[in-house]
């Protein structure tokens, strides 16, 4: 008992440095968190600066230089450091451009799902009763249908494109957030500071906005971060089923899925985007785990 008190006091002290500054300092101390941040930042910068970083147009085909291996293998050149694919497109350039859509889809879908889920979660948790019943039964229904099946059906119908993909990924995964926000809301609602807000005479809307929401948001951010990782992988799986990003857009999932035919013969076509996904997911999860440690005292190690 005493020990936790003491450590929490030492963290008190630390927090005096200011919220963000101290977050940053804590980030430096967590090596995995730091690695995660670096990876995520690097990927983001890569996505933003793609036109300046990539040597080639990602859609530029060159039938004469198909399936060139990466530079360190026989036949590879520094002109295409990571080789070329079956249409002679530069794998490195495609990976660089692919980061744009992979991250865009991952992040936007999570934001969309988060907003919907947050809204319904707060209503279900705070107002309870019939609202809760309706929302939670809907959540149950969604949860009972595997995510990927859900998406498969919708995408088969709407046709896959970046906006529909975001819409579908977001529209089917909001339930996770709704569930989480609801249960957090239920627990926050019982805290004394919410009681005291009611005792002060604050209206429901104000209580939700100023008392419940800010205290729910940290767990929310953690889950959301981790879900960015799942979404990137999910996009790859949808590509496998032919319902992911469609050319001429490039995403890692698409590259990986397209390249699977070449795994046995020209491994680089699928492996490099695979590594890109793995590293990004790794980074995002590290960052998410670190955020969990910092923001969510309940799950704190």
């Amino acid at each position, binding site marked *: 008992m005493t020990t936790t008190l003491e450590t929490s006091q030492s963290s*008190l002290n630390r*927090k*005096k440095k200011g*919220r963000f500054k101290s977050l940053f300092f804590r980030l430096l101390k967590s090596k995995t968190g730091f690695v995660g941040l670096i990876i995520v930042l690097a990927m983001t910068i890569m996505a933003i600066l793609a036109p300046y970083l990539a040597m080639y147009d990602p859609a530029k085909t060159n039938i004469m230089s198909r399936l060139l291996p990466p530079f360190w293998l026989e036949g590879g050149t520094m002109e295409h450091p990571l080789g070329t694919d079956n249409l002679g497109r530069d794998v490195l350039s495609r990976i660089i451009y692919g980061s744009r859509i992979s991250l865009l889809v991952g992040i936007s879908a999570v934001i969309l799902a988060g907003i919907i889920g947050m809204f319904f979660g707060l209503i279900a948790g705070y107002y309870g009763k019939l609202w809760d019943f309706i929302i939670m039964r809907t959540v149950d229904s969604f949860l009972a249908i595997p995510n990927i099946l859900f998406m498969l059906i919708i995408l088969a119908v709407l046709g896959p494109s970046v906006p529909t993909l975001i819409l579908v990924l977001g529209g089917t995964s909001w339930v996770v957030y709704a569930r989480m926000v609801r249960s957090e809301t239920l627990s926050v609602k019982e*805290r*004394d*500071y919410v*009681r*005291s*807000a*009611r*005792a*002060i*005479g*604050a*209206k429901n809307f*104000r209580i939700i906005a*100023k*008392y419940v929401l*800010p*205290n729910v948001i940290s767990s929310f951010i953690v889950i959301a971060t981790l879900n960015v990782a799942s979404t990137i992988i999910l996009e790859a799986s949808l590509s496998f089923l032919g319902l992911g990003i469609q050319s001429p857009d490039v995403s890692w999932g698409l590259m990986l899925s397209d390249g699977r035919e070449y795994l046995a013969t020209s491994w680089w076509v699928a492996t490099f985007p695979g590594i890109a996904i793995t590293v990004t997911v790794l980074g995002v999860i590290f960052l998410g785990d670190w955020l969990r440690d910092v923001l969510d005292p309940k799950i704190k190690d």
Partner: protein
Amino acid sequence: MEVVKEKIEIEEKVIMKVRNLKKHFEITKGYIKKQSSTVRAVDGLNFDVYEGETLGIVGESGCGKSTTGQLILGLLDATEGNIYFDSKDIAQMSQEELRKARRDLQVIFQDPYSSLNPRMTVEEIIGEPLVVHKIASGEQLRKEVLELIKLVGLGEHQLKRYPHEFSGGQRQRIGIARALALRPKVIVCDEAVSALDVSIQAQILNLLKKLQKELDLTYIFIAHGLPAVRHISTRIGVMYLGRMVELADRDELFVKPLHPYTHALLDSVPIPDPKLRKTHQLIEGEIPNPSNPPSGCHFHPRCSFATERCKQESPEYREILPRHFVACHHPLH
């Protein structure tokens, strides 16, 4: 002569009347209620609160004292009964009326670590009631907040900080400042000092006393720690399993407890003086489960004076001596 009379009148001015207050909780098992049982957390309370006094309410866990506090504050809906405050019935108020009534009725919670919103600065927390009731804004708000924070012994430099940057005692001061912001008439202190270290507890008790004098406050002081209650209260009520078993002026209660439970409770408190080391007059057994209280007088299974009547008949809560209420078939003394 006149002076004395006036003094008595002031003293006797009732600010709150609680009548036949009941709160029953349905305990449900599983998701759909079927096997439910009723917990009579508060089961027929009657008492008055006088203006300017501190009414202490003590009792052990499960006696319903915290529920009582929440009922008075309108944070819980009463199952039955009335709470007249300023001649209006809190138990019957609409949400909107309640919101307005809360300007006169405030609360200080037990756990200083959970009663302040961790995402708001101290300034926001203390100013919140004024903003909510649109009493002050801008410069005016700041001035009021500054005044409040000084009133509870904290400094201006602490306004921009967040609750976690404070120690337990300091947080409790912030909580007090927030409660004072609306200049309420009554403050419910729900175990306000129970979670604090001894040395800090003393600081807060002194502060509460000082503020009462300066601001003409009425306290309803709910606690399980008898010494603290005795220190601050003018009158004290003792609760047991949802019922008030005894209510009397502080010294009267301590010197001449009429209910066997009160007597035993007082006797159980360890005295910080080894010379007064004693063999306790122990009460046998445990506190019964509130969902299944004993028949008749709830205390009878643990009472050494219990008779057949106590098992059958629930004792009436009555004023045996002037200003001394008790619910017992066989009062002591």
